[in-house]
């Protein structure tokens, strides 16, 4: 459970944002995407990825905190060759909520 994680970093109330990415499906795509966040010390709170349709593409769901850098992050994501599209959803999106049982 989240509460059992060591003392939380002093955080200004984090507004959750959910990003939906349509990407090509091959080894390395996840690495390109995670790298963009990691090199900017921008934590990704949650990641979900599954192939869609015939498996040539995947959908990635990212759970991140609202941050003044988020718009820049989205633009950087859109520049990646393997990212075909980025949609932004609010915290009300249920994709991560349904998974909470697996994290208890």
């Amino acid at each position, binding site marked *: 459970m989240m509460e059992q994680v060591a003392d939380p970093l002093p955080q200004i109330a984090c507004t959750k944002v959910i990003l939906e990415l349509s990407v090509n499906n091959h080894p390395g795509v996840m690495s390109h995407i995670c790298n963009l966040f990691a090199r900017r010390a921008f934590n990704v709170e949650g990641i979900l990825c599954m192939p869609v349709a015939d498996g040539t593409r995947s959908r990635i769901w990212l759970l991140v905190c609202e941050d003044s850098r988020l718009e820049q992050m989205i633009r950087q994501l859109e520049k*990646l060759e393997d990212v075909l599209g980025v949609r932004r959803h609010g915290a009300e999106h249920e994709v991560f909520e349904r998974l909470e049982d697996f994290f208890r």
Partner: protein
Amino acid sequence: MTQLTGAQLLVRLLERQGVRTIAGIPGGAILPFYDALSGSELIRHVLARHEQGAGFMAQGMARVSGVPQVCIASSGPGATNLVTAIADASLDSIPMVIITGQVPLSMIGTDAFQEVDIYGITVPITKHNFLVRSAQELLTVVPEAFRIAMSGRPGPVLIDVPKDVQNQLVDFDELPSPAVPDAGPKLDMDAIEAAAQMINAAQRPVLYLGGGVVHSGAAALAVHLAEQSSLPTTMTLMALGTMPMDHPLSVGMLGMHGARYTNLVLEEADLLICVGARFDDRAIGRTAQFCPNAKIIHIDIDRSELHKIKNAHVAVNADVSTALEALLPRVKVTLRTDWLAQVAELKQRCPMLFPDVDNPRSHYGLIKAVADALDDEAVIATDVGQHQMWVAQAYPFRRSRQWLTSGGLGTMGFGFPTAIGAALAEPERTVVCFTGDGSFKMNIQELATLAEEGLNVKIVLMNNNALGLVYQQQSLFYGKRRFASKYRTEPDFVKIAEGFGVPALDLDKAEDLCAALTEALNTPGPCLIHATIDREQFVYPMVPPGGANTEMIGG
């Protein structure tokens, strides 16, 4: 149906893309490719002495031609030695395709001999990268790599090719077409209209040109815009030459080592028209105090640059040439007498100073003497440090792609191999590499390549036997504690050059320095020109690190 090995196919695809010169170093995992390359009648291979040298040679070819160029290395250390040149290309938006050999697919991930994850290593420093998993994939990957390298904002693309993929046989009906760049973003005409209105309404506009003007081939359009609307024009380090330094509207380079008046003109501006520049920290100083009174128009082909550092009032996501072409007919012909008079007054009050410029044994004097001996057809490369800034301040650049320097990454060791690359691409030109003793030693082994190729490259070595810019910063900002910035021994660079088979001239011993220099610069072929300079001479003016551009010291 044609059958080739992956290596042969790779060579054919490069030939078809128009690649004619490749710099590289062979090694185990890239040997099938080298074997195939030996059969090419179109591609010339230049054997570098260190992979970083090969990377910068490709950069030199790309920087003067604007077309993606290729370098090659083997797996492991060969590949990691390219990393600095790739990162440098990434930060300065230079189109390159880097091909590395890799251990066979079945051995990847086993810590095999000379295995390194160059794909993973280069994720953050390439525009895109590929690990090729079958020879068949080369048919799409190679044209894709070139397309990506040259489309939009240019950049480096890496292709990692395992040895067994190079040896694999592949059948195909026909080769894919050579790659062409993608069309630029669709122009937002409302934004162009708004930009034109802001320019027409401004009282004190300044045009701020960046490297994107060079990449887009838009220098003539930018000068046209400046002349049409009386726009004082400043250039970033990367854009030097896009407007001739002696153009009446040029206010020179901005930023950390720009002239005082240039930064003061920007302070006065009520409109900043940023074209293909990215508000780099060395250019703008403290962000909040840069152009405090100005509205901003920002034109850039990379959407992620817009609003990144400074919020733009009008942002135009477009190829610079396309945007300027659309803007020109909408911008009124204006003579801004008052504003230009104010700029002239600032220039007179706080001019760029070149102390001792008439003495060719001083740093500015030497640069001037070199410029006087050459015409605008010469290419000028530099390394990184004091000499780089002095050349940027003092050399009369008058055309795009005349000036090759490592702007974003600031890589010592860049200049010399880049100059070799420039000479490979444009052998009819004289290529001068201004360097310092610290930088030169970082790729000095390429003297062997230069001697072998016999290229028209002149190395002007400004020797103060120190890491001059470090020495300067320690002198100014670290209580004069000059630590690890002075060398305790001094190599004999003239003997070193001659030992490699490169003729050398020691200006310290020349009686008539200018005559000796002019003769050396105008004699075809390689030459090292050595000049001792004074270690106590610093680059001025200077914005202290973290300071605002108006808080300059010196000069």
